């Protein structure tokens, strides 16, 4: 079987679910003939037609609001935002409506929408194409936030998200879209939401991350292993609701934790994980939890953007720091 990239796994999951469930419809800018600017919907209009693969006018609030309306009628819309930086006009619809329709109607109306967007920096795209503001969605009650970091998880988690009866913000690390390929059987098997994935086990330190930073984190773990430090690497995957139990169990074992994310440091999701460890895991911590994150600055234009991103070296350094505590 041919190996596929993360973006191809997205396409495969969409196609699978559209075949399996006539209620699944896609909408977004340029998702039709163009197949999306990253080609995530490539070929789908040919198979499913323009009624189910709907190119929209250029208006993000509209995309979200229309998806919400569709969802209440039993459709399962998967709405694409071209880049996460263009999702902001839709925040009102997502926060004030999608996230609370079930609650405010006491379950009478529901909103099974998936809001997809490529996210993160590092692909030398123009300004506003590099956002990673998952924390905003993670702060919003009623939402789920899911971020895959491999082709297999992209496939399995997207299927799970489409089948989920509540709104899901599904963020795809554009830096990983065409990075590592994997064998991903098109078997329609969803992966579980709301749980972390332990990508590597180790007894010395817990590295908690998600999205594209899984790449640098795994590389750092490899490098550390050569120095004799065994890192456990956890891909959070579902950012909200957070599977803190898995993280705590790992930190209980290792006594040390470094959290790595691409978003700006202040009020990033890493802060919440760190706070929860401090509240519930202080007794087994051998060193302060550290965060290796994006800076509290706007992602620089392409020439300097790599300086914004946490590097493998920074992760190694942070691990060395926490290892120094007795």
């Amino acid at each position, binding site marked *: 079987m041919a190996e596929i990239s993360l973006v191809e796994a997205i396409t495969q999951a969409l196609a699978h679910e559209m075949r399996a469930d006539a209620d699944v419809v896609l909408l977004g800018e340029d998702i039709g003939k163009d197949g999306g600017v990253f080609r995530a919907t490539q070929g789908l209009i040919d198979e499913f037609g323009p009624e189910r693969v709907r190119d929209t006018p250029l208006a993000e609030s*509209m995309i979200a609001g229309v998806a919400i309306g*569709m*969802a209440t009628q039993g459709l399962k819309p998967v709405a694409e935002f071209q880049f996460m930086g263009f999702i902001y006009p839709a925040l009102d619809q997502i926060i004030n409506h999608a996230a609370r329709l079930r*609650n405010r109607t006491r379950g009478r109306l*529901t909103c099974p929408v998936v809001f997809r967007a490529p996210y993160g920096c590092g692909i030398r795209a123009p300004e506003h194409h590099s956002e990673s503001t998952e924390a905003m969605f993670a702060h919003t009650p009623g939402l789920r936030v899911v971020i895959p970091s491999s082709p297999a998880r992209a496939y399995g988690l997207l299927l799970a998200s489409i089948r989920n009866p509540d709104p899901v913000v599904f963020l795809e690390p554009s830096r990983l879209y065409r990075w590592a390929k994997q064998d991903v059987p098109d078997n329609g098997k969803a992966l579980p939401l709301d749980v972390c994935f332990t990508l590597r086990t180790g007894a010395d330190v817990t590295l908690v991350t998600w999205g594209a930073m899984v790449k640098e984190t795994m590389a750092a773990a490899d490098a550390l292993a050569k120095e004799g430090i065994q890192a456990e690497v956890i891909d959070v995957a579902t950012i909200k609701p957070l599977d803190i139990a898995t993280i705590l169990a790992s930190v209980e074992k290792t006594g040390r934790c470094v959290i790595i994310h691409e978003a700006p440091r202040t009020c990033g999701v890493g802060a919440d994980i760190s706070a929860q460890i401090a509240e519930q895991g202080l007794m087994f911590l051998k060193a302060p939890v550290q965060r290796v994150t994006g800076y509290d600055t706007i992602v620089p234009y392409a020439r300097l953007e790599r300086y914004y991103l946490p590097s493998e070296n920074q992760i190694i350094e942070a691990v060395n720091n926490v290892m120094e505590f007795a």
Partner: protein
Amino acid sequence: MNIVARFEIPYYQYLNETSTVIDTLPEFAQDPQHLQRLYRLMVLIRVFDSKAIALQRTGKLGTYPSSRGQEAVFVGMGDALAKTDLFVPYYRDFGTLIQRGAKLSDFLMYWGGDERGNSYSDDKTDFPFSVPVGSQPLHAAGIASAFKIRKEKRAVLVTCGDGATSQGDFYEALNLAGIWQLPVVFVVSNNQWAISVPRSAQTGAKTIAQKAIAAGFSGEQVDGNDVIAVRERVASALKKARENNEPTLLEILSYRQSDHTTADDASRYEPKGVRETEWVKEPIGRLRRYLESIQAWSETDEQKLLAECGETVDQAVAEYQNCPPQPIESIFDYLYETLPDIYAEQREDVKKKEVPVHG
């Protein structure tokens, strides 16, 4: 220089402010019983309205937005809707919803601060009120898309105020309806005010109806104090929607004969005397005078109706007041289909919470 496009905006009225019929009445309006039904509903709305305001004044209800002056808009729409259509209301629209199966007590629950007010007793398909002004036309467009995808012959009716027409979402919804040819009717209930901002300060457009031109479909002005015109134009627009997937924008003109809500004090900004001047156009008296002129209504009918309405409203108030509160932990029970484990602890926590009575 060539002219490449031309447009015009019509205005519809059947019964003018002196209760004179100025155009051939549509068929339904030739049936006095039908008109009586509409009349009864308008009166019920007005009676309920006064009661709700009284409840709010005595601390038994939260902030409440009155329908006074707009009764014909809500009644005309409710009467025009088919059971299978779907209605996406804004916060003044209970008068439409009670024709759809919602109960008056639902609205007391809602404005009394209880989510169960959105359950709409015998109406399980319509949307709850939209509070974020102007956001709901997009939902209507989405619902209409679903109907069209499924080839169902159903229309969506969505309402908003004149103020809402300044919101980007309003326009995005119109634009989509125009390009996707969606079975949706957009009603703007133009009551001349958005809280303190008069219609004349909301947009430079001469009519709100002409905003449809931006989206490539037709817009009309309708006299919103004439329930016959409202009923007729909404019904006709819904029919075009159901049969031809053709969207329409209806600007329905009336006047807000009240404060914006009970939290507002219009005397701060409403020019003196205007409300009184506008009152002569008011929809209930207008229809009553017409019904009387065709011997279809009498003072006895009126007294009986008022008594009936009073009873209906009192019963709704009793239902509201007798309804036991929701369990406290219900604040978690509709957040997701299944509450994720990590919130279970919070749900336990809130059960134990004692809360001071004072604000």
